[in-house]
């Protein structure tokens, strides 16, 4: 299934696919794969939007925690025994299922991956050269979330972002990417 078909499928989920695209999708050779992809995305959307899915009853919390901790899964009391509200229990399965769904549903390329249509690769590693700085080692800078800026601060910041976008796009020869960065930073999109 190529990128275009995935886009069509995605558009269908928004009820925005055009007829020609849908016809192309429906005439795709591997209909079972299309169906599986559709079902996976529907499940994920159900999880995200309504908190309900066919897999809602599966609690993978313990398993995920065990993997993360590097320990074998241990028996844990059920929700009734813990007395925790259902919404609290929901968080972990939802997150875990999202990860699973993404890995299974989108990991096989989805058009964003590498050329082998399998899994994406990290950017390659070179042995960093030790370049001394007169300012010595610098600790990780404090992070300030841009989302926390008030309107006046954001306007101030956006001026810098726009100018930098301009430099990137024309001065550094990166074409449209600089403006795309600007749009991304300024909100909108999905």
């Amino acid at each position, binding site marked *: 299934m190529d990128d275009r078909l995935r886009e069509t499928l995605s558009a269908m989920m928004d009820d925005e696919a055009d007829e020609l695209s849908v016809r192309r999708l429906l005439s795709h050779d591997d209909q079972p794969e299309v169906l599986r992809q559709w079902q996976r995305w529907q499940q994920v959307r159900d999880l995200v939007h309504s908190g309900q899915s066919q897999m809602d009853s599966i609690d993978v919390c313990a398993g995920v925690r065990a993997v993360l901790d590097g320990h074998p899964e241990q028996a844990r009391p059920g929700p009734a025994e813990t007395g925790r509200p259902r919404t609290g229990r929901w968080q972990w399965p939802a997150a875990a299922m999202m990860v699973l769904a993404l890995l299974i549903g989108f990991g096989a390329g989805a058009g964003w991956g590498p*050329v082998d249509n399998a899994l994406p*690769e990290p*950017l390659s590693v070179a042995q*960093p050269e030790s370049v001394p700085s007169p300012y010595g080692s610098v600790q990780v800078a404090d992070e300030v979330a841009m989302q926390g800026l008030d309107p006046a601060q954001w306007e101030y910041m956006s001026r810098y972002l726009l100018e930098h976008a301009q430099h990137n796009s024309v001065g550094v020869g990166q074409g449209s990417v600089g403006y795309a960065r600007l749009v*991304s930073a300024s909100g909108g999109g999905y």
Partner: protein
Amino acid sequence: MTGAGWGFLKHGVLALLLVAVVPVAAAGDRPASAWLEQLGPALNMTSYRGVFVYARGGRVHSMQVAHRYVDGMVQERLVLQDGGAGEIVRRGMDVVCVLPRQGKFRLDQVIPSGPFAQASASSLMPVNRWYRSDLVGEDRIAGYDAVIVALTARDAYRYSHRLWLEKNTGLLVKRDVGEAGGPPLEHFQFTSLEITGDIPDSELEVQTQGQVVTRSSGDTNTGQPAEAVGRMAGWQLGWRPQGFVPAVAPGTGTGQAIAFSDGIAAFSVFVEPEGAVKMPRGASRIGATTVYMRELTVAGKPFLVTVVGEVPPKTARQVADSVRVEDAQALSAGKL
């Protein structure tokens, strides 16, 4: 395509961040360096139309683009496909922006008068000194065959890049940026593309209704780009990563900003008297872009040093920390 659709593709990008794969065998006869030399000219001198998506952090955006190179002049029109309507039109040294209210840009203040360089700095820079370049495979993007060039940063002061370049023209059709060995922090990719010399004038004209602001980016007297170094009035940069050289001069109107590039990545440094708006201090990161702000007090006067660029936060911080204000009076006077 909008709504949850792109949301799902966005999560697809996130999925890519979670996994790794064995590199693909190199392909192609031309060495990676030859492709890199072609990168800058191809971006400017190839005529094409298409739609590209850009993803970083949790956001995915799409933009429609038409790009034409006629008589040595770049003409380009970008139309935002998400959120409010808006477009950016370049015609040689002039730019026209029509942006929605999103982001609250006051374009009459922010369109810089910096030069629209006809040639990319990347074609002149010894990129291989700062990045190890390898041809790592071939791919097909938006219907075009492409080669993949991996640029691995040779130090920790810059990010690594992976470039997909269309085989015939060398046009950049996809790019990932991230820390060496880490997942991509930002992702750019054409989803539809037509490389063609047949781009009519109508595709390059402003069509969106809205506030239009036009500003020539050339010098009003000579029509030539302003000298970059000349704009560092009153301050100096004590340190910058090797390979980053002054690229373009931001035309802030205040004359205290400058951009540096190593041919692949760039950061901009702004030094201004502290204004009425109290800005936060520290670093913020969206995808591969870092914004670092710090305060500098000279002769009792507070100045705001801001570094914006596609560099790691610690690089931005080191650059900002190295700024020295040598003439507070001149710097203050430059604030219009």
